[in-house]
């Protein structure tokens, strides 16, 4: 479904991605793990068209989407729940959701999907008219996920969706991701919570200093001594 090959990304002179290749199959969950500053978010933003890669290709559903602007990438069906949630704090919960459906792909089913999202996260319905900036961290994460669903994505990239959440909410977020995946959505998952994400994923990639240093079946990586030492603290 998604094939990234030899992706390179620079911030000024600093290289953030150095020949990254990743393949994601239809319907699977792929985990991407790595230390702080390894380049995980950069990879997501480069796929999303928010950063422009200097070299390499991104193919989605057989189409070369390298260097496309983010509005076109989103409209092809690649959604994301971004690092730091990136909600619109001064807009209402409902307006935030509506913004997820501005891309042509989301427009037709906007109202129905708002209902689906409210059914999934009833607390959002209670706060429908409230400014999103006044929500709790967990509610903001629900909103970020709901807003992403508004665009009818085929592939969702989650960037540290459990960061800063209480354990009960972390479980809820992972459960939501599982449910979405079971319903047919392909998932790329970047997580601090390496053990949990490796247990959910089929394939996994380890990113270090902008390079993929290890990849394979997630269950194999869970057993890998290097991974266990570096990321699981075992």
């Amino acid at each position, binding site marked *: 479904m998604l094939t990234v090959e030899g992706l390179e990304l620079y911030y000024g002179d600093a290289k953030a991605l150095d020949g990254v290749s990743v393949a994601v199959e239809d319907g699977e969950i792929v985990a991407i793990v790595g230390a702080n500053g390894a380049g995980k978010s950069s990879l997501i933003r480069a796929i999303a068209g*928010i950063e422009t890669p200097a070299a390499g290709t991104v193919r989605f559903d057989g189409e070369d989407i390298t260097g496309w602007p983010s509005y076109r990438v989103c409209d092809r069906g690649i959604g994301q729940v*971004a690092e730091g949630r990136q909600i619109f704090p001064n807009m209402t919960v409902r307006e935030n959701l509506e*913004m997820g459906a*501005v891309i042509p792909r989301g427009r037709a089913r906007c109202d129905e999907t708002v209902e689906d999202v409210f059914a999934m996260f009833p607390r959002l319905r209670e706060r429908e008219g409230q400014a999103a900036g006044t929500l709790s961290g967990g509610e903001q994460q629900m909103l970020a996920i709901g807003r992403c669903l508004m665009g009818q994505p085929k592939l969702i990239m989650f960037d540290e969706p459990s960061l800063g959440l209480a354990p009960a909410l972390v479980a809820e977020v992972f459960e939501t991701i599982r449910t979405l995946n079971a319903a047919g959505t392909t998932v790329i998952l970047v997580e601090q919570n390496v053990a949990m994400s490796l247990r959910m994923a089929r394939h996994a990639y380890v990113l270090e200093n902008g390079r993929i240093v290890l990849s394979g079946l997630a269950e194999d990586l869970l057993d890998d001594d290097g991974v266990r030492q570096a990321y699981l603290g075992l």
Partner: protein
Amino acid sequence: MTWDTVASILIGGALTGLVYSLMALGLSVIFGVIRVVNFAHGEMMTLAMFAGVFLFTGGGLDPILSLPIVAGTLFILGYALQRRLVEPFIARPEHEQFILLLAVAILLVNGLLLAFGPDARSVTVDYAFDSFELGPIFIDKVKAYAAGVGVLVAAGLLMFFRYTRTGKAIRACSDNLMGAQVVGLNIRRLYALTFGLGVACVGAAGCLLSLLVDVTPMLGPELTLLAFVIVIIGGLGSMMGALLGGIVVGLSEALAGLLIVPSMKSMFSFGLLILILAFRPQGLFGKRT
């Protein structure tokens, strides 16, 4: 001087102020979303005023009726200006943006000078000297109409931002630019629309002001400063602030004319600006940062 006269003059000032409000609203909308200060704002206003004058003298169109034409044309100009000229400067240092828009301003002033010369021009509609009488108070018809239409245009703009999909998307860009990219908003298009709308406000305001004030090409810089004063008094980036700031400045100009001499009116506005900056630096409606 009687209290009736004072009241008439103050009401007239507030009504003129509402036209200023519409001009300042344009500046505020552009800055609030794109974070670019339109240093050619007043010069664009004079362009619109000249358009109002010539559609009146040449085509017999009341500026209130030519307003949609002028505002529409300036919208297109603003859209193109953002797309072609300002957009590449968005990520560049502020002084470079300043020089770019200053260049636009200078081109406009001199273009108008070349085309029309330095003489003052005016619009004299057939109701120019009529007034409404509310008991002992007289209100100029032109001022009442100009203010009324100005309020309608401003209300339309506020509704656009509150209720339409595109209007909300523009607010989303100013609220969280990264978030806007994340959900796939077309930011370059929305910025161009915003600049177009801001300049269209000026177009509308210019038409209305041509009913009240004589226009010369040299009026531009003065109006740019006036728009800044209003926006700073009202609070940078706040739409309600721009509306209120315009009324405050209109009132202060009227008071200046009443108490001292009319030519001292800008001294009054600037005095007010300094007072507000000293005691409420974020402006009347601005948020403290």
